[in-house]
């Protein structure tokens, strides 16, 4: 019998990556909508969002490496980089490759935001929704545990949470800043 260690690790790290991605999206939405009001420091939400994004990327890397090392399904290095090349469920695994690559691009774009331009950077950042949707489809279609109630419930809960947090973000204006008079725009010299 084949050693199932890497196969189990691959499944566990895939689910872990999905949970971390979900939490990162929720934390990212909380940066501006501030669902916990002043109970959570502004810097904490931003830090949490970045930290969770990096953790998710790490879990995805582990997911990819363990899938190559595992003997249950045959996934080579090329299949990790090119969507749809894997012999095992090529479309479903291809969705995962696409989500991982787009997600990595979004993370890499943060330190480059000035060079890219904030407007373009924000547009790119919005494609996180495509990453989340594709990762969900990948998990549902390729995941070995999808048919289990707990796993299906996890996907359902994640989609509901992201949808609810997005609605909250869209419908609620950011909490007003205290003690700040918003002044009309006027020409003023830039600070030296």
């Amino acid at each position, binding site marked *: 019998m084949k050693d199932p260690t890497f196969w189990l690790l691959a499944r566990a790290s895939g689910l872990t990556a999905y949970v971390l991605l979900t939490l990162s999206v929720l934390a990212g939405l909380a*940066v*501006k909508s501030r669902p916990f009001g002043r109970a959570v*420091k*502004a*810097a904490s939400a*931003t830090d949490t969002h970045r930290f969770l994004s990096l953790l998710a990327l790490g879990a995805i890397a582990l997911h990819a490496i363990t899938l190559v090392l595992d003997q249950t399904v045959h996934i080579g290095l090329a299949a990790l980089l090119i969507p749809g090349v894997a012999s095992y469920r090529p479309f479903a695994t291809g969705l995962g490759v696409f989500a991982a690559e787009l997600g990595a691009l979004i993370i890499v774009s943060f330190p480059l*935001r*000035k060079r890219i*331009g*904030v407007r373009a950077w*924000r547009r790119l950042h919005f494609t996180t929704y495509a990453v989340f949707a594709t990762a969900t489809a990948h998990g549902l279609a390729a995941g070995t545990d999808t048919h289990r109630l707990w796993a299906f419930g996890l996907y359902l809960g994640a989609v509901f949470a992201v949808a609810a947090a997005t609605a909250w973000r869209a419908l609620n204006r*950011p909490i007003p*800043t*205290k*003690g*700040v*008079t*918003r*002044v*009309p*725009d006027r020409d*003023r010299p*830039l*600070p*030296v």
Partner: protein
Amino acid sequence: MYRIVIDHSLCSGFGDCADLAPEVFELESEGRAFLRAGESDDPAVLDAAAACPMGAISVVQVEAA
């Protein structure tokens, strides 16, 4: 004494700076942050720089004149 600079090409108007150090930062109606004062003794400017999601605020410590 801290000297503060906002990179206006990065500011996206989150407003956390004006929330944390209202004596130093203000938001214009378009939602961009501006400085009320270029220098301050208030260590809250450090919190404001840390809280900026875009990393648009730089603070350097300078000798008081």
